[in-house]
């Protein structure tokens, strides 16, 4: 209705600035990166001077042990982090789903770790993990234990990084799970209670299944974000010791800025992007399927 009374160009005028920004600042660069991944290119060259080498960057990467190691570290980091955070976040949400004033305060305080710059989060944890002045080793020594080489030992470093990430992002899962819990249909919960279901039975047979769609989307969102974690690890370990915490995003950064091989970094970015694309598409398809199923159920209910 609005479109008739207004000039035909109006929507385009409203959309043009956004479109321009996104084409110039986002789409063109991504296309450019795909092109650059086929080049042997270093930062001192203009892109036109770089040599076209076809798929060699991709093939070389697949045979590169360091890249495969970093791929493995990335997958390990992402899967551990997401499962731990889901477990803790959903558990806490189930525990704290009460009508008590404290929960609102808790929610506000819980957002803090997510709002603070990743650089600063890395800084805080690096300080706490410090071998001599850090609070963890000080406490351990006070209690008469051996200090732990949190960040300087290849076996411990990944654990330390995972702990920091769990601290920062469990609240995200918690808040989403709590929102999901509180929007559950009251009638279903009441029915279960009246039928005499115990607290555990309510959780396992009523609450969790009803929350499942939101939980799966949350897990996927968190998984996508876990592949993007970079700054925290950069500040804490810079990928070391060895390659033990060098996740893919960090390796892209180091390949581009330290080793100055832009073509290789672009090819690596493409691998990362493909991985994330699969996850995103999976999430989208899942959304569509659940929507379709819900619509079908509604129809069946209406028909009676």
């Amino acid at each position: 209705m609005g479109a008739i009374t207004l000039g035909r160009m109006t929507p385009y005028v409203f959309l043009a600035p956004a479109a321009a920004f996104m084409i110039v600042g986002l789409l063109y660069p991504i296309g450019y990166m795909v092109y650059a991944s086929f080049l042997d290119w270093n930062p001192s060259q203009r892109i036109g001077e770089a040599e076209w080498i076809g798929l060699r960057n991709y093939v070389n990467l697949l045979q590169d042990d360091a890249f495969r190691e970093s791929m493995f570290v990335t997958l390990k980091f992402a899967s551990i982090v997401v499962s731990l955070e889901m477990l803790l976040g959903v558990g806490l949400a189930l525990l704290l789903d009460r009508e008590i004033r404290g929960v609102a305060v808790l929610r506000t305080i819980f957002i803090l770790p997510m709002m603070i710059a990743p650089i600063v989060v890395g800084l805080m944890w690096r300080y706490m993990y410090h071998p001599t002045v850090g609070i963890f080793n000080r406490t351990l020594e006070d209690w008469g234990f051996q200090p732990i080489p949190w960040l300087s030992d290849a076996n411990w470093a990944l654990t330390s990084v995972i702990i920091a990430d769990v601290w920062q992002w469990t609240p995200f899962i918690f808040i989403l799970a709590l929102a999901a819990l509180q929007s559950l249909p009251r009638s279903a919960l009441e029915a279960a209670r009246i039928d005499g279901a115990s607290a555990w039975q309510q959780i396992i047979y009523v609450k969790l299944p009803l929350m499942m769609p939101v939980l799966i989307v949350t897990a996927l969102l968190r998984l996508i974000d876990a592949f993007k974690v970079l700054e925290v690890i950069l500040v804490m370990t810079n990928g070391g010791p060895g390659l033990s915490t060098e996740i893919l995003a960090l390796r892209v950064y180091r390949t581009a800025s330290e080793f100055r091989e832009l073509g290789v970094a672009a090819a690596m970015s493409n691998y990362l992007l493909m991985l994330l694309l699969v996850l995103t598409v999976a999430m989208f398809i899942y959304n569509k399927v659940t929507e379709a199923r819900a619509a079908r159920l509604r129809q069946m209910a209406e028909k009676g």
Partner: protein
Amino acid sequence: MNTSSQQQNPAFYALLVVLIIMAVGPIWLMLTTSLRLNVDIMSETSSLLFMPTLQNYETVLCDVLWYDPAHVDYCDPTFGRALGNSIIVALIATGITLVVGCMAAYALVRFRFMGRDTVSITTLLMRMVPPAVLLVPVFGIWTFQYQLDGTRAGVILVYVAMNLPFVIWILQSFIVQVPIQLEEAARMDGANAFQVFFLVVLPVIKPGLAAASIFTFRIVWNEFLLANALLDRNTRTVPVTIVNSLTEYDIDWAVIMATGMLLAIPPIIFTFVASKQIITGMTAGAVKG
């Protein structure tokens, strides 16, 4: 419901307290460290009691203070400059993103010539792109084609582009709720499309604007990777200077924590002022897909 929660009250509140300590502990530690002298931090006996001092903040901010702190021998202007850059970049990028995003969201909702699905898919796809992936192309294009390397305009351009999909998408969900009758009434009174948008629609969707601006500001204010690649000595933002001052050994923890604290303060303030809007923005992402 009531009876069960009353029975478990003590354990419940104990759990709350533990969680709050765990969430705030590291931040609190950063704050107290930034208020100590470095000698204090390094000493073997870490006492809980100490004289808080603002010396570290004076060292960091010496360039922008109106007086010369007595204990600073050599004033390093890096941080003062970086703080200025950070504020300029974050404010301008947030402003542009909001204005441009708002107009686009309005067009997408009211003129519906593109499906809302298209917007959701674009948002989702853009959310997926890690900043690290933009590093290589942005470096190449900004240096050789746009000639924007080293300028604030250069990073602002990437930041606006990066944040637009999310802002458009979240504002869209607010604009849908604006009753069309309100706009029609304004149009009857002779307002044109732009007047309707700026005078009628914008005031109604203020909560949405708040959520969108906080999210954008936070991302821009905290961003390190692209700022590091694009900016030079004079235009660096705070996260870049923090990473640059981290060396392998002999870190001046007190001063660096003060720097970190200064970077963390604006997001912390936003959290306490607008936690409701932040949570709205965050949950909308998952619940509506």
